[in-house]
């Protein structure tokens, strides 16, 4: 879409705000609506918009498919890893109270933060990877 000046300029302005909003949804999930899944799909939608306007090749220069192939399982590993870590600390699987020895509620906040980060990573990279494989087939 080289010629579409308005689309290019508007999306260039919009994409940072989309990513910012995704981060807000991610880190504000404890207090307002949202969380890892919602933030993940917004991140994916922002990158898909970038790929639509500037081309798949430009997008893959920023995030390569190989990187995504690592990120998809890494998110699940982070999530399960938190569970295993609480095991090692002597609690049950995914027992976030164990994460902070002084204040269990801090442990809860930390656990939810880590787990949501894992969800964000898996959801956004899976979405993008599916988009890459679909969009790459036509050429």
């Amino acid at each position: 879409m080289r010629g579409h000046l308005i689309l290019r300029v508007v999306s260039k302005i919009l994409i940072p705000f989309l990513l910012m909003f995704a981060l807000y949804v991610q880190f504000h999930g404890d207090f307002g609506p949202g969380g890892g899944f919602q933030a993940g799909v917004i991140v994916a939608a922002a990158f898909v918009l970038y790929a639509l306007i500037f081309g798949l090749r430009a997008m893959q220069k920023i995030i390569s498919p190989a990187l995504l192939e690592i990120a998809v399982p890494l998110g699940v590993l982070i999530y399960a890893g938190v569970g295993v870590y609480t095991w090692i600390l002597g609690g049950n699987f995914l027992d976030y109270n164990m994460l902070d020895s002084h204040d269990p509620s801090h442990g809860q906040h930390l656990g939810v933060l880590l787990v949501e980060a894992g969800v964000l990573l898996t959801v956004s990279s899976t979405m993008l990877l599916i988009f890459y494989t679909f969009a790459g087939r036509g050429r």
Partner: protein
Amino acid sequence: MEFLFNLILLLFLAAVTIGIIGVRNLFAVVVLSGAYSFLMATLLIAMDAVDVGMTEAAVGAGVSTVLLLSALHLTNTEEAPAKHSNVLPMALALLTGAVLVYGTWDLPRYGDPDTPMNSYVGDEYLERSIPETTIPNVVTSVLASYRGYDTLGETAVIFTAGIGVLMLLYGRRRKGDDDEGDGRS
């Protein structure tokens, strides 16, 4: 006021659905289904399910519209004319719809406080969430903490779905890339 708002949105939804059935151009169908998702997202926000609305807008209207468009790129944009009569599928769809409407009669009224889901476990979560976890948003504390196993399973499902799509599409593309002269590219 809210009733009027919901009524207008539902009427729009019905109009878009009839449009999707009637139009034979697949590009128009994809655009209309994107519009359907946006209307649905607005309805979900009107029902105070903002997080579901966000997901619907980003996935339903955003990513899946793009995926359908890129699938359209590989096929014809006009729907092929039907080879058989439409009577049987029509009757089946109407019957299924009638059964679903019949099923809604047994559902509790929307927001009814005396339903099982609002009276036993739901109350328990609302009472215990803030003293136990100090997370103000109960949805998050239920999803990520009390029901952490379920969300781990959900993440694993998304992971599996991604791997499945990769195995179906990616492998074939690699083969096509190896021998460039297979006529399609």
